[in-house]
């Protein structure tokens, strides 16, 4: 939606001078065009995948994998297994909208809120994101720490590893390079699936859980609500919305790429769903063997518990998976924070810009990671509790972000013929209601217990 000269048709306007960001994006787009000309469908898909897979596998992060494993360890193979699949289907609806808005408008989520709805809403949305991302990033460093602890390495190494990784990926100053490095790392999320296979689960139990959503979780109601909210927050979160829209714009997706963008999103959700279920299945092996005490694992961690139960290989795979989950999420969540805050300030935000051209974007990427890294170095901080509550906080704040995606995706002036259909709107509104109810149920129940109104 061009606003440069509304009185002239776009093709009549003289071409503005190209910036280095334009040239970098144009190089990427030239490959896409050549792939289209040669009708290389798979190569075209390879070029266009990225934001969707990264958002989904990035959300299979440390706190999420801890939540899934805790679901399995406490309740076994039952309700939560198909529930994970259901939440990823919800994620597809939300993320497809973000991708579509990014591809059609070529602008990030923060920038669009700022320009269409004003500074107050933009800053509130960015403020929420900053809070949840900081807490989640602490959870990511916890995951790396839990993984490294299995190899007898401490918090200092975890903090250093995360920050160095952020600095390394930012050093290329090209979106394409950043995306491919993170995609390469994200493949190792599959380690959770290998771990699940190695614990030799009963396939009939898995089939029964998917077919019947049972056995239903029972016992402490508040703990069920906590894990329900944490599991939703493990699949659909504000940072994913910000990230996928901004990354789609940064990558240079156009309405012509919507089909591949949808495939990218669905592929990411399928992979993340399978790997997430893998973590739950591996965790279910701990059922009845101390798995009902999540906090009991804070010291030894799930990798050690699995190692004692199913052998060193499973423990090692799970520990490496935790390191990967934390590392990939540190990169994607830092990026989403960088995009969101820079866009809300009206500043340049692209991996195709130089450090000087996008100082706030790059600085925020590094600073949020460094702050979270510093927290895990503080002795006595309840890290596992932070990791699980990070997802709950994301669930509670999510409806606000989702309403803006929904408004943008229905903005005919922006989206033209790519506005939401009725079906998408019904599904998206149902998701907003479900997420709001789950978040509120846990928040209110916990609060009333805490102030001794409920027991």
């Amino acid at each position, binding site marked *: 939606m061009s606003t440069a000269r509304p009185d002239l048709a776009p093709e009549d306007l003289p071409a503005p001078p190209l910036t280095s960001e*334009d040239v970098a994006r144009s190089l990427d787009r030239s490959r896409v065009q050549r792939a289209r000309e040669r009708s290389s469908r798979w190569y075209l898909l390879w070029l266009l995948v990225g934001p969707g897979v990264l958002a989904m596998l990035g959300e299979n992060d440390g706190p999420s994998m801890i939540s899934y494993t805790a679901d399995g360890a406490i309740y076994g193979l039952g309700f939560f297994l198909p529930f994970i699949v259901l939440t990823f289907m919800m994620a597809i609806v939300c993320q497809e909208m973000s991708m579509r808005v990014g591809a059609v408008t070529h602008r990030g989520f923060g920038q669009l809120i700022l320009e269409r709805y004003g500074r107050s809403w933009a800053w509130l949305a960015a403020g929420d994101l900053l809070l949840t991302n900081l807490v989640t990033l602490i959870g990511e460093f916890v995951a790396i720490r839990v993984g490294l602890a299995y190899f007898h390495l401490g918090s200092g190494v975890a903090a250093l590893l995360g920050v160095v990784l952020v600095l390394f990926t930012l050093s290329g100053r090209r979106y394409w390079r950043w995306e491919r490095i993170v995609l390469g790392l994200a493949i190792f999320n599959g380690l959770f699936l290998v771990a699940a296979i190695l614990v030799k689960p009963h396939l009939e139990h898995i089939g029964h859980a998917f077919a019947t959503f049972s056995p239903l979780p029972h016992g402490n109601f508040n703990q069920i609500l906590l894990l329900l909210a944490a599991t939703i927050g493990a699949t659909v979160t504000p940072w994913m919305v910000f990230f996928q829209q901004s990354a789609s714009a940064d990558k240079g997706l156009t309405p012509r790429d919507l089909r591949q963008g949808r495939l990218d999103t669905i592929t990411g959700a399928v992979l993340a769903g399978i790997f997430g279920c893998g973590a739950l299945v591996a965790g279910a092996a701990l059922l009845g063997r101390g798995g009902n005490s999540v906090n009991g694992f804070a010291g030894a961690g799930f990798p050690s518990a699995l190692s004692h139960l199913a052998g060193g290989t499973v423990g090692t795979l799970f520990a490496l998976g935790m390191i990967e989950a934390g590392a990939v999420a540190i990169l994607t969540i830092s990026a989403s924070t960088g995009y969101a805050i820079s866009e809300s300030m009206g500043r340049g935000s692209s991996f195709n810009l130089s450090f000087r051209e996008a100082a706030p974007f790059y600085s925020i990427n590094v600073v949020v990671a460094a702050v979270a890294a510093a927290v895990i170095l503080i002795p006595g901080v309840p890290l596992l509790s932070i990791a699980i509550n990070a997802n709950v906080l994301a669930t509670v704040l999510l409806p606000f972000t989702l309403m803006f995606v929904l408004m943008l995706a229905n903005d005919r002036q922006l989206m033209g013929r790519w506005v939401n259909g009725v079906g998408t709107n019904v599904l998206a509104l149902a998701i907003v209601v479900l997420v709001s109810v789950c978040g509120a149920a846990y928040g209110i129940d916990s609060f009333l217990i805490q102030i001794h109104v409920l027991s």
Partner: protein
Amino acid sequence: MRQTDEQQRDEYEEEMVMFLERDQLVADRRQPLPPANIGSRAEAALWTLRIFVLIVGAMVIYTFCAKL
């Protein structure tokens, strides 16, 4: 020679710009979009959701801190 360099640069830019849509160019993206007209009811609904989210968020944070 200088003219040739400029010509080459122009040709290069012309070639590069072909691969981007007009509104993908940085110059175009820097032009702010006009503000959306959201009605008073939509605005009120957004503020209600905002307050709801803040209250529940505060409850979650309070519970988390109290359990420390």
